[in-house]
């Protein structure tokens, strides 16, 4: 296929024909852009935007089990009113905040320290790096199987360890006692979540130019000072984004909580995400569940915008 260039100095005016759909012309190239974007736009509308609209619509109706195409129930704020007046909702918010903070703190502390550790030069460093982030590759449901057995109430390893250490004198029913259930859940989620922090931190560490450290050494900075004034500031942007991504992950997680504790005992491990699901598929209150889900989404978006603010582009 030959490409004709407009305004070709060798050609007479009559030979520069403008072909309407000649996508090679720079002025027409954006058309190709739209064509390439079309499938994505279509998919996003079909599987994300439209369902989202249905959710929003459901949350404003008094419906149990909806059927698409059925005549719409009358418009009402009932679900939201009920939601904000229910003590369960506020308790669930509190559990969510606690879980998000505990898991994020744990994952960041362990993730950053393991990254700093394997960032040293030593033999077998590559193997150590791969092994350190291995939990990332274990599917969530499988991680739960492992930890459910470790935290088992009759023959679990964790209770045995606690007895050995003299912290308790009997087996603990981890998953079915309110306080311990929360910590069992936190440990499981941190184990699954810290490798991501570790991987991101390591990438951040490696993008720090070695010259910075060399220059600091020349100026007589010791290891602690180099860490405080070079490593930490250079890591901050990456860490900020990572922190938000980890928080969002905990906020939205379903499988770990559902399979490990089912939100119990006494809803002490029920996050907003679990509440949304249970209201819909446990109690078949689709309207109410949608309201919980919409509120969850709004909190997610607001929280991440507030935290990253101007840096939000970095999440792309």
């Amino acid at each position, binding site marked *: 296929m030959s*490409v004709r260039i407009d305004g070709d100095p060798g050609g007479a005016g009559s030979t520069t024909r403008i072909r309407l759909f000649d*996508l*090679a012309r720079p002025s027409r190239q954006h058309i*190709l*852009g739209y064509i*390439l*974007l079309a499938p*994505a*736009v279509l998919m996003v509308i079909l*599987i*994300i935007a439209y369902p*989202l609209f*249905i*959710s929003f619509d*459901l949350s404003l109706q008094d419906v149990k089990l909806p*059927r*698409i195409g059925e005549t719409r129930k009358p418009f009402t704020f009932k679900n939201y009113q009920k939601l904000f007046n229910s003590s369960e909702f506020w308790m669930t918010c509190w559990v969510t905040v606690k879980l998000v903070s505990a898991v994020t703190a744990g994952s960041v502390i362990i993730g950053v320290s*393991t990254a700093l*550790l394997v960032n040293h030069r*030593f033999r077998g460093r590559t193997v*150590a790096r*791969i*092994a*350190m*982030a*291995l*939990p990332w*590759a*274990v599917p969530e*449901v*499988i991680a*739960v*199987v*492992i*930890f459910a*057995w470790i935290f*088992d109430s009759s*023959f679990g390893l964790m209770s045995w360890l606690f007895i050995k250490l003299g912290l308790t004198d009997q087996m603990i029913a981890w998953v079915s006692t309110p306080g311990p259930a929360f910590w069992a859940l936190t440990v499981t989620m941190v*184990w699954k979540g810290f490798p991501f922090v570790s991987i991101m931190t390591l990438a951040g560490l490696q*993008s720090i130019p070695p010259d910075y450290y060399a220059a600091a050494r020349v100026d007589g900075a010791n290891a602690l000072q180099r860490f405080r004034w070079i490593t930490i500031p250079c890591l901050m*942007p*990456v860490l900020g984004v*990572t922190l938000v991504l980890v928080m969002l992950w905990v*906020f939205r997680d*379903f*499988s770990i909580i559902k*399979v490990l504790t089912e939100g119990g005992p006494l809803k002490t491990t029920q996050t907003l*995400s*679990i509440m949304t*699901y249970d209201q*819909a598929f446990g109690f078949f209150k*689709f309207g109410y*569940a*949608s309201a919980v*889900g919409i509120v*969850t989404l709004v909190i*997610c*978006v607001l929280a991440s915008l507030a935290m990253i603010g101007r840096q939000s582009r970095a*999440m*792309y």
Partner: protein
Amino acid sequence: MRRSPLKSALLYGSVIGSLAVILFPVYWLFVTALSTTFELSGLPPSFWPENPQWWIFGKVWSERPIPRWLTNSAIAAIGSVVLSMFVSVLAGYALSRFRVRGGHSLGLFILTAKMLPATLLVIPLFALFSRLGMLGSLWTLIFAHSTLIIPFTTWMLKGYFDTIPRELEQAAMVDGCSPLGAMLRVILPVSAPGLAATALYAFVLSWADYAYARTFLVNAQSNWTANLGIATMRGEYTTDWNEISAAAVFVAIPIILIYLFLERYLVGGLTAGSEK
């Protein structure tokens, strides 16, 4: 700079120590699978079984529908990877190369989609699929997993295409390629590592799903995915920890293998676009 012996002992000590703690749960999964029920119901626990019962893997493989679960998971994963890669290669390329009106707002929307709780989307999708009579079919997972995957892959690929110099296409077009041809014949082959990383990442995302499978397939036992099957085994009245652990090993191994062999690519994909 050489380290003093004390420092290097300290370094190796802490690396080995933390690896031991981090990898212990994975080790414990294998040990549990290989232990007899008798060994598992006693304390103190044995950290290596006296007679490892290797046959447990064969037993679980033939007595439980593991092969079927794995096949279903693979079908759902491959299907959603193909669908979302097709869509997001085109979109990622367009967002990277062309100034498209509305491109920015599409970007913002996709960013928001990354924050969508699966438990919120699962409600309308359930209503939709039930209306279409698709509940119980693996197609539901292919579409639903794409809602999780497309936002990620589009931005990963856009970031990757941004790193490829535009001169490549320009050269191809001077040599007589159409813009589409330049993309298909020049840019895509050059981006193979990025495409592979993205596709694998998408595969891992789909394989890990539990929420959608549980909701759409619960009444269609023959279409259960691996995670759904395992979670159901855990919910049975008497949990045989060695059997469920052996089954769990089968489900975890494909992803762990992908990770071990392609760690570099996967990690590259994970961190793509999030630095700077």
